Structures are given as C-alpha cells and as structure tokens.
C-alpha cells in the first residue's frame, strides 16, 4: 500500500505540473491571438474605437488561467486524498468555463479572424485537457489511502 500511495502522489505531482502548463497556455495564448493584438478594433459612430468581443474573452481567460494555475500548484504540494479530489473538481469546473467563454458566454469574432481560427479552438483543446487531467487526478486520488 505505501508504494501505491507513493506512486499516486508522484503521479498527482506530474498531473499538477501538467495543469500549470495548461493554465499558462490558457492565460497567454488569447493575449496574442485576439483581434486587439492584430491591431483590429471596432469603429464607433463618434469616430472612436473600441475592442472587439474576442478581447474580452481573452481577458476573461486570464481569470480562468490563474485559478487553474493555483489548482495545479496545490496539486503538486498537497498529499491529502480529500484535498486532491477537491482540486480535481475545481480544475474540471475551470476547464469547463475555459471552453464556455469563447463558445457560449462571450464569444469571438468572424470566421476568418485569428481569434476564431486559433484562439477559440486552442482554448477548447486546453480546456478539454484541463478537464481530462483534473478528472485523472481525482481518479488517482480516490485510489490513494488517506
């Protein structure tokens, strides 16, 4: 049993580091693929400009990436079964919101724009990976002893 426990802790450390990498990708990629980063903005009737909606998605993804980063970091240091399960649940929820922000909640711009061709699919992939890794961590934690 102790060796099983050790293997579980080691694996959760690995999953925690993976979550940190995913979180960084979620927070950073949108900043370089939204329309604002490409010099595009909406022209207003008064002659001014305002950011397109993909920019707000990119901003919101920072708020998604940072908690996921914290979840990953905690997964690396924490060894308690219940805490690891809780972290897995939190990671999954953040992963779901990472996908929902560009697809349902805020959205991105037009078909050929970078935010639609790169940002949205990348966030969908990384969000899905965050969910898979978090669920994996939960399953591993359940197998561990207290």
């Amino acid at each position, binding site marked *: 049993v102790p060796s099983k426990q050790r293997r579980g802790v080691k694996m959760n450390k690995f999953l925690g580091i993976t979550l940190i990498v995913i979180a960084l990708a979620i927070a950073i990629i949108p900043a370089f693929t939204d329309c604002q980063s490409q010099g595009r903005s909406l022209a207003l009737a008064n002659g001014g400009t305002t950011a397109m909606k993909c920019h707000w998605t990119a901003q919101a993804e920072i708020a998604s990436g940072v908690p996921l980063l914290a979840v990953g970091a905690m997964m690396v240091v924490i060894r308690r079964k219940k805490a690891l399960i809780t972290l897995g649940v939190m990671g999954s929820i953040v992963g779901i919101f990472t996908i929902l922000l560009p697809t349902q909640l805020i959205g991105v711009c*037009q078909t050929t724009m970078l935010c639609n061709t790169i940002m949205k699919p990348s966030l969908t992939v990384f969000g899905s990976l965050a969910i898979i890794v978090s669920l994996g961590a939960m399953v591993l934690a359940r197998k561990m002893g207290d």
Partner: protein
Amino acid sequence: VQLVRLALKNIRASGFRSLAIFLAVMGVAGFLLTTTLIIAGARYSLDSGLKRLGADLLVVPFGAEDKIETALLMGKPTNIFMPRNNLEKLVGIPGISAVSPQVYLASMYDSPCCAVSEMFIVVYDPATDFTLTPWLEKYLGRGLNEKEVIGGTYIFVPQGEKYIRLYGYDTVLLGNLEPTGTGIDQTLFMTLETAMAMAASSSSTAMERLYVNPDRISAAMVKIAPGEDAHRIALRILKEAPGMVPIESPNLFGAFRSQMNGLLWGFLAITVTIWIIAMYLIGIVFSMAANERRREMAVLRAIGATRNFIFASLLTEAALLAFGGAIIGISSAAIGLYLFKDLLAGSLRMPFLFPSIPSFLGFYGGGVALAILAITLSALIPAFRISRQELAIAMRE
C-alpha cells in the same frame, strides 16, 4: 477472454515497448486520417458547390474562365462582362433546354452582415433561373420579390437590425443556403429588380455609387436537354457562339482539382512510405521482444499452452496495441481537424467542408482496420517463429 487477458498483462509488463508501439500507431494513423480528411473535405466542398450551382454548363466571356472559377470558388468579384444578347445565341443552340444569366455585381469588404471579411453580391434572373428557384420553391414556396435576398451560410442580419443595408438600401434576408465551403457561402443572391433599385438608391444613400448595367452579364448557366451529351453541346457552343467559352460542370474548378490531385498523390506517397517504415520498425521491435521472451513462451508451452495459443496471444497483443493507438490517434486527429478547420482552409487556400457523418465514420473505421491489419502483419513473422521454437532448446538458453 483468456487470450485477451494474457495479452493485456504482457502489454502492461513491457510498458516502454508497448508505449513506443502505441505512440507509433497513434502518430501514423492520425496522420493518415488527417491527410485523407483534408482531401475528402476539399472534394466534398467542391461537390457541394457544384450541386448548389446546379448547371450542366457555365458559359463565360472568352478569356475569363479562370476569373469566373475564382469568383465561384473563393467569392471574388470579376469585372469581365459580356452582352446580355449573347443569351439569345445560346438559346438557339439545339440541345440546350434552359439558359439563365448571372451578374457578379460587387464585393463588400468587412460587411457587418457577413461572417467573413468579403461578401460577394450575385444577381440572378428569376424569370429564367433554374439553379436557385427550386431551392426557393422548396423552402419559401415562392421566388424573391424586390428588396428580398437570399444568402450563403455566412450571411446574417446584424444583431439588433431588421434589414441588411447595402449601399444604403435595406434588404430582407429570407434564408440561408446550405454550407458548401466555397465562395457561395459568402454570396448574397438578389434579383435584377432589387439590384436596379439598389443602384438607383445608391446615388443618394451610399458613399460610393453602384452602377448596374442590365445589358451586361458575367456568366450564363446552361441546362442541357435530357439525353443530350454535355461535351457535344459545349463543342457546339464553342463553334456557334463566338466570344463565349463553355465550362462543363464536372470540369469546373479544373485547375484547383488538378492541384488537389497532385496534393493527394503527394500525401498518399508520404503516408504509404511512413506506413511501410512504421510496419518494418514495429516488426523489428516485435522480433527483439520475441527473442527476449523465448524462455517465457517456453514456460507457457511447458505448462500446457499450445503453439497456436502462443501465436494467437502475440498477435492479440499487437492487435490490441494497434486498436488502442489507432482509436486515440484518429480521434485526436479528427477533433483537431474539426476545431482548426477554418485555420486549415485559410492557410491552404482551399475550400473545405468537414465530410458528412457516414463518410467520416467510414474513414474512421477504415483507419482503425488498416492499423490493426498492418500491425498484426508486422508481428506475424516474429509470432510464428516464437510459437514454433523447440521447447527444450528455448528452456536451456
């Protein structure tokens, strides 16, 4: 069940070797499906475009063949026209049952009513049209009136608005055509009546005036009478209607098709080479593993396992690895391709439409079956050798 359990235990026991084979199958199967889906998606898109076009022949002004093809494929406008009375010459040719003009009027850039940066406006003649009218009759039960338009799948009414405003003229979007992956998706269709009204309005409502000359057309859609040969009619048009060039529907987008075929053969050659190399390497890995496991297999024989059981267990091990690798590789490739399809179509500059579910499932099943077959074949010789070894010699080693 016993066979599968033994194979699974063997896979778990030799983790690194199994992982290497699994990853190799995953990579090769994923690459195979990606290339196949790209080519199939481009073909599906072209076929959908041609079906939507619905004409047997497209007659265009002499010298404008490529430009008209680009107009239809990518939604780019042309400024090459021919006189409208050319239609009369076409109607007079025996074997032609219907002729209808189309005018590729203008392109709107960064229009708020189009999901892509360029929107293409096409004018058709409802009195003679046989391409859009059947669709309109089916879905609307009538044709288009003045101010009414129909759009490709990327056309929409801007949020909070009731109309699509073009040159300061309000039009009503009555519906959207099915996606084709070609320029038709970003095209807005209207009648000549609407185009004339829009042009008249543009002098006072738009920053840039729109000119519509009802005596000029961009192309003529031609329908051949039943039983007639399209190629023969095309030759007749070339002979009897100077200044016009017929493009047979299957030959439409010919330059693109030949480019795509080149791509297909290139991809196919790369894929076959990779498969052969992967099969050879996996065969070597299995041979090495078989040599390592001679004693293990001899013990199995000694406790009563038959030669066929050992042979089958090794093949099952290979098939299970191939199955797992192919499922993961092909699924990841399909998801990646689906998510990044717009990026792919944009960077390859080709039309792309994700294949229909039945054909996708066909590709998926084919890919998995091919992977299992190829990897099982790779393991065939090592499995045969190890199952036929002499028990006493193997035990002594």
